[in-house]
């Protein structure tokens, strides 16, 4: 998905986990996933490098669609869709 396509994507849930280190962002994502429906998109903000690998692997294991990561100033924005 291109950055332009991503910018037009409707974000149904945003989780700001920038204040926590690993495993905080993963736990925050796990908690939040229950609050969205299948087909909805969640954005996870994290300043922890480990999250870049954790979230895609977690999505694969859980059967969710990992969309992509965008690097911002000092943190990452990860996008996924619940199946």
């Amino acid at each position, binding site marked *: 998905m291109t950055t332009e396509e991503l910018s037009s994507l409707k974000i149904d849930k945003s989780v700001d986990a920038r*204040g926590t*280190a*690993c495993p905080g962002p993963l*736990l925050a994502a796990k908690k939040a996933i229950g609050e969205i429906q299948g087909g909805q998109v969640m954005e996870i903000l994290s300043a922890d490098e480990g999250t870049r690998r954790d979230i895609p692997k*977690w999505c694969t294991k859980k059967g969710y669609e990992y969309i992509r990561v965008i690097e911002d100033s000092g943190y990452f924005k990860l996008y996924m869709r619940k199946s």
Partner: protein
Amino acid sequence: MAKMTVALFSGSIDKLTGAGVVISGAAADDMDVEVFVLLMAARAFVKGNQDKIDGLSEYPELKDEFTKSLERLNVSTWIEFFEMSKELTNVKVYICSLAGKMWGGEKMEDFIDLVDDICGIGEYITSAQEADVHLFI
């Protein structure tokens, strides 16, 4: 459902924190987790002892640095990790009956709320035999 069995032997703050991180990772993965609290770790689960748990197993001389780093990184306490994990998935904490007695805990009311039951070593062995992931911490 995949299952992880943890033999939690160490009662030092660094290893309890490490155990909490690992268990919470398993919880995020929806694994069933069974924690068997053995000898030295049981002290941390007896009511009234939580503030006494502050030693490090590794690099004990770096305790201040360890503590400050956890605060700076906003890392949860080991108890918070256990609590979060129990909220997320099926995490059971069992106290080895011998270990509990060593630190003054004989009945369920002697232990903090994280504890689900008191068990013997045979239950741990059975759990370990059935587990997909088995850790000794």
